[in-house]
């Protein structure tokens, strides 16, 4: 009897903690949507900001976040894929593999502000790229590299051995194996990794606030050497102006837009990952 | 015949998962102090039948049970059944030996620790007793505090049986306990089953017809979720009445 009581009590307690956690998080979503929705409109999304974001919309900021995120993804993806292929298909030395892995995991844990600062000193100052789109894109690319790389690597490594073995038994060359077994089998894993990386880049503020963005006058950059304006830094500026109700409203609007963008990327990543699971169970 | 109810009595039972019927029109009894073999091809429902008796399917997705199932006279799918107490009475041994990542000793008294925590002081002696009953004591008495994973597969399986014995079950459900073991370990387990059936009601699902013939007094042949034939082992093996049974046995 006592055991049953303990069982029910524990269950209840666990349920309560889950409920508390979930409702807190539901509260967050409600707050973001509830506060952001009133300022959402087609005009808000398609007009440029005026009067330091107090008036007008967030068109340039959305565009800036998108191009910065996309260019970071474009730079990061081939590096991550090449690196993963190198580790799984080319490299034989276990020690070197371990070193690469440690570097990746270390990089994954580095606080983003440090990427921003040292990245700026490297790309912006040493290589002379200044505060610009390209500096921001490269910093973000390095920042998301471990996310993408780990995901791609795990996808490739989780390909069941019998696939490779049957490929080998058919007399495929290593290159043919990569092309017809490794890449197709890990396709959704690669997609998942890239999308997760993009989501991470899209939500990042600290790494780009000194390195890629301008408070005003950036617009859509006409060259890689120009600064961009992004949703993240836009929110940061507006948030500090919280006495002005218009600023607050626009900050929440931009916050909702940014959250929606990140969620779209995350949802696609979750979808791709579920496809990966399906494929591997086939 | 006396009045004590049979250890297990199933009346017109039907088991389905998500609407898909897996067992149907099951109607049978198991005798005390004897071994019954449940035979049949893979996927015929042997495992489901065993798991249903211990209510191990409760957590499965879309599980439904209709009919009546009595264990020692009490209806176990009725209201107010204490599932934990039921499983204490019905021990179960699985196909793949599974020991917990703890020491041999801790594994042996694992269930006991939760059922009778007040007997903590006696655990070492109890462990010895049940390990002896499982014919394992001599092999592990010097390694009681080593992780159970170092034991061989056959030893792990006997440890699993000792662990189940410790909880004090009157019924033993064994789901192909020797399927993943080598011949020598199989022999040891068979020896153990012979001794178990002196006191317990043993239900043994097996593919190994020779094993069923060697160990069991009764046989139950399951095919596509239904019982096609049942009866004393010698009769079923030597003179099967059912067409399907004959086909299966003659393989």
């Amino acid at each position, binding site marked *: 009897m006592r055991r049953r009581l303990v069982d029910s009590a524990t269950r209840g307690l666990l349920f309560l903690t889950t409920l508390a956690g979930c409702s807190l998080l539901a509260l967050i979503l409600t707050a973001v949507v509830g506060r952001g929705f009133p300022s959402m409109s087609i005009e808000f999304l398609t007009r440029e900001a005026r009067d*330091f974001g107090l008036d007008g919309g967030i068109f340039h900021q959305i565009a800036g976040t998108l191009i910065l995120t996309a*260019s970071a993804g*474009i*730079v990061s*993806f*081939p*590096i991550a*894929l*090449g690196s993963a292929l190198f580790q799984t298909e080319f490299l034989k030395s276990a020690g070197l593999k371990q070193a690469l892995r440690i570097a990746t995991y270390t990089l994954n844990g580095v606080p983003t502000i440090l990427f921003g600062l040292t990245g700026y000193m490297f790309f*912006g*100052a040493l290589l*002379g*790229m*200044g*505060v*610009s789109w*390209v500096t921001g*894109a*490269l910093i973000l690319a390095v920042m998301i590299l471990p996310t993408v790389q780990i995901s791609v690597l795990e996808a490739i490594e989780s390909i069941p051995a019998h696939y490779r073995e049957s490929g080998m038994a058919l007399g495929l060359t290593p*290159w043919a194996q*990569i*092309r017809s077994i490794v*890449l*197709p089998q890990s*396709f959704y894993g*690669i997609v998942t990794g890239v999308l997760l990386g993009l989501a991470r880049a899209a939500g990042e503020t600290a790494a780009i606030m000194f390195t890629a*963005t*301008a*408070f*005003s*006058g*950036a*617009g859509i950059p*006409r*060259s*890689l*050497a*120009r*600064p961009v304006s992004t949703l993240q830094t836009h929110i940061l*500026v507006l948030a*500090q*102006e*919280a*006495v002005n109700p218009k*600023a607050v409203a626009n900050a929440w609007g931009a916050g909702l837009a940014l959250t929606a963008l990140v969620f779209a990327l995350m949802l696609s990543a979750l979808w791709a990952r579920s496809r990966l699971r399906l494929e591997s169970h086939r | 015949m006396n009045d004590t109810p049979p250890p297990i009595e199933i009346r017109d039972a039907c088991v389905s998962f998500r609407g898909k019927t897996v067992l149907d029109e099951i109607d049978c009894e198991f005798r005390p102090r004897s071994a019954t073999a449940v035979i049949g091809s893979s996927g015929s429902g042997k495992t489901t039948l065993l798991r249903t008796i211990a209510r191990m399917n409760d957590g499965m997705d879309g599980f439904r049970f209709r009919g009546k199932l009595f264990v020692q006279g009490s209806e176990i799918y009725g209201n107010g059944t204490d599932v934990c107490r039921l499983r204490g009475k019905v021990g179960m041994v699985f196909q793949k030996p599974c020991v917990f990542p703890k020491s041999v000793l801790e594994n042996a008294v694992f269930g006991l620790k939760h059922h009778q925590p007040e007997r903590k002081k006696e655990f070492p002696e109890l462990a010895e007793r049940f390990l002896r009953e499982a014919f394992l004591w001599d092999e592990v008495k010097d390694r009681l505090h080593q992780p159970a994973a170092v034991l061989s597969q056959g030893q792990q399986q006997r440890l699993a049986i000792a662990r189940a014995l410790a909880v004090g079950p009157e019924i033993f459900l064994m789901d192909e306990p020797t399927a993943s073991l080598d011949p020598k370990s199989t022999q040891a387990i068979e020896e153990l089953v012979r001794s178990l059936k002196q006191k317990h009601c043993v239900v043994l699902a097996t593919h190994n017809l020779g094993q069923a013939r060697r160990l069991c007094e009764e046989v139950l042949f399951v095919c596509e979720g239904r019982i096609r034939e049942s009866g004393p082992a010698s009769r079923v093996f030597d003179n099967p009445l059912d067409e399907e049974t004959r086909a299966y046995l003659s393989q």
Partner: protein
Amino acid sequence: MVRGVERPRGFLLAMLALVWCAIGTAAPGGAAEEQTIRVAGSTTVLPIVSKAADRFKVSHRGAAVSVNAGGSGVGVNDVGNGRAQIGMLSRELTREERGQFKNAGLKTHAVGRDAVACVVSSEVYSAGVKTLTREQIRDIYLGKIGNWKDVGGPDRRIVVIDKETHRGTRHVFMQYVFGDEQARAPGARLVTGSNNEEQTKVAQSDAAIGMLSVAWINPDVVGVGIREGGKVIQPTLESVRDGSFPISRNLNLVTAGEPRGIVKEFIDFILGPEGQKIVEESGYVAVR
């Protein structure tokens, strides 16, 4: 996308080429840079420059002005290191800064005048704290006075709001209160950065004191009068204009050497009639 590629080698090389294109285009980007003016620095000067930039772009097609905040110290630093052509400065250059960037030949151009007011939450103001003396402000920032009732206000603990040490507003304010632009404020409860942030924190509190450019004063964030020798000077543009308000300052633009080309045009634009009108619109006193 991966499936469609025939040869992984070609695919990898194509990707490599893409990366290098991305990095390579950054270098020729330098040529287009001449028409872009980068401005960074004080949030006090920021409204003037941002608005001026919007109008400047209309009259000068092809010119782009990117403006960043950060604070006066950031402005000086960026100009000194060549990251920006124009720095915004809500104070004068310090001796350290002149020394540090000797080679850059920093030059300041005053574009407007402003006063730094000592501001309090409106609740405190309406409860009776209409004026403060320099000594009272000093003791509050030192933490010696911790409750508004000691200076004639309600019985409420004072939320002392400090600013980041490199901010121009702080330099000017501390110069007046302590006679030292780098003075410490051990009584502070909160440190803020931009004027907007400070304004927000004062407004959100009901017992705060802070320092803020007069352009940021509003009904929630009220500037108290400064009592000096029996006289009370209100923080208004008038008292800045007639020079009576004790905590006033120039709003400067700083360049490395004499401005040339488009940078000179932009500074001249701000100093011209249209630019000076923007200065007045932004809540400051024009210099011309």
